[in-house]
């Protein structure tokens, strides 16, 4: 190509700086560039069709050709065009280097157009016929200077101020959107939003782009692309590129392959562009890319060569074990006859229903028992009935190492219920402790124990044994919960006894129901019950407790004995703390009382004995007071007000407003405790207790408020505000009195 000029005007696509290069000189020398228009020599006039630059692809060690107007690149030298050889400049000058990078950053865009096929763009006519040449490229692993650029270069996109781009990719994109009218018509739009979300996720290396690219300059035909993409993998595509393509089903299912392939590619390209954005100024093309995606018309789905996935719910359900479970798990049992006004069902029918409820569970989770000479299967109904014999296998499918435990637990249950003679030197409570311990430590055993008890309660001819069986349920339902699978069946089983009046079973079953509900939400207890606690649990159905109940219930309970307007346990414990010199004992409310003493005092109160005898440590009642508050069925300040408490934690007026909305009992307790705690903020007292108002507030915050969140950050964040709220309450106790 004979040059008829000395200088070429080059516009740096990125900085928009114009500079002048002497290509001829560069052939001989190291390349010559000027910022000012050179005074000597002729400058090449601008070609209306765009200039062609000859550039060097470092990876393939091949020259390629770039059109400044269309932004397209070719491997093959365009004929009959004026070609400006910029290879030397590219290699020797920093500007050239940058330029090549910029060009390479364009790489992604052409693919869309090429594969789209539906838009006949000029570059397609120009796209090289020689497929083999670019296909030598798959080894390209860096995307530098991959000559597949045929982005429509319109100066505006490149004009974007660099700083703007750096600020955030989004601003750049937005900017670009508004400018995008030039090519928007013939470029299909693809739903951009979900796509952009994907694209912002970091971590995809630039490689996938490069390795995914090479086929594109040559193809220019959508149908080929799908194949080319598939074929390319064995060549040079690295794992990362696979990743990009694997994304495909998620985002682009049921579109035609050409479009499918656009997604991973453009995704990769945007990501890589973003990456480069953070690194340098190279990413001018980013807005182009994103714009291209946004503005393309939707491809026609009708010609989709790949069948769309057919939703076959039946098949899916059949294959999904969970679904199977769900189908059965909804027991078509008539609503339980829990209400009193409904007459009791005939015993036979009731039994059948019970049978059914447990049977549904048994069908799924029970192991098969075989019996006799011919190893015949034992029917499930049999397995679920009371027996005086021992079992030879666990009822449920358990790990091998738990079989022994399961058999032992069954024996113990029989002993406790009096169906089996008990060896000397053993007590029922010890056995119960063993069962509790087993359930706490071995998760699998929980259901087994529950099922075993149910089995022994089913068709049990002995009423004494039934009573004992329910006692076991009373104890284990405050120790560990059944699994989610068993929960509904067990609940159903217990509810069926709500109406059985003989043997006080209605009272017991109701109690067990409520305990069951509680343990299911709270999870297993950490510690094995003490003997006293076990005894207490057995009595619990008949002697309601003041622990773990709702305030309403507690007030109802004490209505007959006292006319106090708050639960009497509160003043009892508070006075006990004061009597035992709590005001002057170091770390009051922080130091825990001895666990055994606390339990002892609790049992005492639960049994109705409000008796402070024998307790010498103020920390014992202090601990118990906190425990009682925490253990209430509903938090003292209801969960629905939690948010507003947190929000207005330092505003006393708002706090009063919240407290005013509480039921009267709760309000009185809050008042009483605020008063009580104010006594501890006295400087005389804090000097000895070393518990200032902050410390007190922090210790009491979780007792007043229960954070309904599980997430670490929420718990962490809110604990500060909970404390602040409590501090507000304590500091403003007199104000509370006036306003409530």
């Amino acid at each position, binding site marked *: 190509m004979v040059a008829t000029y000395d200088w070429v005007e080059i516009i740096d696509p990125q900085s928009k700086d114009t500079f002048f290069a002497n290509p001829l000189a560069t052939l001989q020398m190291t390349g010559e560039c000027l910022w000012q228009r050179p005074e000597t020599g002729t400058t090449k006039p601008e070609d209306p069709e765009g200039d062609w630059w000859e550039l060097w692809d470092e990876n393939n060690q091949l020259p390629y050709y770039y059109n400044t107007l269309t932004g397209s690149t070719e491997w093959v030298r365009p004929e009959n065009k004026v070609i400006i050889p910029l290879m030397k400049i590219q290699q020797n000058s920093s500007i050239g280097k940058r330029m090549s990078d910029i060009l390479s950053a364009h790489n992604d865009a052409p693919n869309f157009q090429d594969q789209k096929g539906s838009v006949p763009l000029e570059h397609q006519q120009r796209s090289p016929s020689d497929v083999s040449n670019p296909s030598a490229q798959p080894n390209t692993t860096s995307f530098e200077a991959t000559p597949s650029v045929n982005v429509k270069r319109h100066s505006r996109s490149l004009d974007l101020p660099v700083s703007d781009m750096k600020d955030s990719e989004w601003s750049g994109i937005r900017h670009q959107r508004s400018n995008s009218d030039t090519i928007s018509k013939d470029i299909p739009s693809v739903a951009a939003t979900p796509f952009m979300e994907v694209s912002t996720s970091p971590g995809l290396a*630039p490689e996938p782009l490069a390795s995914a690219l090479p086929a594109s300059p040559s193809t220019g035909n959508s149908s080929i692309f799908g194949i080319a993409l598939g074929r390319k993998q064995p060549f040079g595509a690295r794992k990362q590129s696979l990743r990009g393509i694997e994304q495909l089903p998620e985002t682009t299912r049921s579109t035609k392959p050409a479009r499918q392939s656009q997604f991973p590619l453009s995704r990769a390209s945007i990501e890589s562009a973003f990456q480069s954005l953070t690194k340098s100024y190279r990413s001018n093309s980013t807005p182009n890319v994103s714009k291209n995606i946004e503005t393309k018309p939707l491809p026609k789905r009708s010609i989709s060569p790949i069948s769309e996935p057919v939703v076959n719910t039946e098949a899916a359900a059949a294959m999904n074990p969970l679904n199977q479970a769900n189908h059965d798990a909804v027991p078509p049992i008539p609503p339980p006859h829990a209400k009193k006004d409904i007459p009791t069902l005939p015993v036979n029918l009731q039994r059948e229903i019970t049978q059914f409820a447990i049977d549904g569970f048994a069908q799924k989770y029970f192991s098969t028992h075989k019996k006799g000479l011919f190893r015949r299967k034992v029917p499930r109904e049999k397995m679920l009935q009371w027996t005086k014999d021992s079992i030879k296998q666990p009822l449920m499918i358990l790990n091998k190492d738990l079989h022994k435990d399961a058999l032992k637990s069954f024996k113990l249950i029989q002993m406790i219920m009096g169906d089996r003679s008990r060896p000397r030197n053993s007590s029922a409570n010890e056995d119960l402790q063993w069962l509790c311990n087993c359930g706490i430590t071995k998760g699998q055993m929980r259901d087994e124990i529950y099922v075993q008890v149910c089995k022994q309660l089913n068709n049990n001819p002995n009423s004494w044994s039934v009573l004992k069986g329910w006692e076991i349920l009373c104890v284990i339902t405050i120790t560990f919960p059944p699994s989610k699978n068993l929960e509904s069946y067990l609940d159903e089983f217990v509810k069926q006894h709500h109406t059985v009046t003989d043997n006080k079973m209605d009272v017991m079953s109701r109690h067990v129901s409520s305990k069951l509900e509680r343990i299911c939400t709270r999870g297993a207890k950490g510690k094995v019950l003490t003997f006293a606690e076990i005894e207490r649990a057995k009595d619990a159905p008949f002697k309601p407790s003041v622990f773990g109940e709702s305030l309403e219930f507690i007030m109802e309970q004490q209505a007959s004995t006292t006319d106090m307007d708050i639960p009497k346990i509160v003043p009892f414990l508070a006075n006990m703390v004061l009597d035992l010199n709590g005001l002057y004992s170091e770390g009051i409310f922080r130091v825990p009382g001895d666990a055994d003493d606390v339990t002892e005092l609790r049992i005492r109160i639960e049994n109705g004995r409000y008796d402070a005898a024998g307790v010498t440590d103020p920390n014992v009642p202090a601990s118990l007071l906190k425990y009682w508050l925490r253990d209430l069925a509903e938090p003292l300040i209801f969960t629905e007000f939690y948010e507003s408490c947190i929000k207005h934690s330092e505003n006393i007026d708002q706090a009063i407003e919240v407290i005013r909305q509480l039921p009267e009992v709760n309000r009185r307790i809050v008042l009483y405790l605020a008063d009580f705690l104010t006594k501890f903020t006295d400087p005389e007292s804090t000097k000895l207790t070393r518990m200032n108002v902050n410390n007190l507030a922090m210790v009491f915050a979780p007792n007043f408020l229960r954070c309904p969140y599980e997430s670490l950050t929420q718990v962490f964040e809110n604990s500060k505000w909970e404390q602040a709220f409590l501090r507000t309450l304590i500091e403003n106790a007199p104000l509370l009195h006036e306003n409530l």
Partner: protein
Amino acid sequence: MAICGDEQKHINRKIVVCGDYQCGKTSLLNVMTTGYFGQLYEPAVFDCHYRDATIDGQEVGVSMVDTKSTDEHEHSCGVHFSNAHVILMCFAVDNRESLDNIMYRWLDIVQEYRPNVKIVLVALKCDLRDDEATIMKLQQINQHPVLYEEGLATARSINAVRYLECSAKHNRGVNECFEQAAKVAMSGKYRLLRKNQCRSLCS
């Protein structure tokens, strides 16, 4: 252009400190992070300290979480345990009960929220072992400060990975404690305590 893999992956490790009230958890963390030993009496707020460290040639961001020991904070403690890499169980040598509670209380809580986590047992306030007043006070109730051997025995029985001793007040063994904890947090495998791995950093 970006070269893949040139950036080192940043590693974060979380250490959670737990133990009985007033055994010195907060002081330990204060000395670990700031080097300052405060005499303030204050139940800890949930505090998260962050410190960068180089462990075995690798940059690690170590976050250390302080917890409150009171019963009502058990749940929030547990939330912290649930993603901890290592748990420092602390006890004070002048308080035998705090050692017992490791076995009876803290182990249970930890097991519940994060079974099989790596545990490091730390004896705190080791300076009090030689403190006349403390010894006298304990003698009155027929006790003596917890000995190294006793701590070690507990460490073995709870399957701790390390047993360390330190004194935050005199800043003895605190940095070693941090290092060891971070190392344990980094080590992938769960190793049981063996004799040669125990160190008495204080004495």
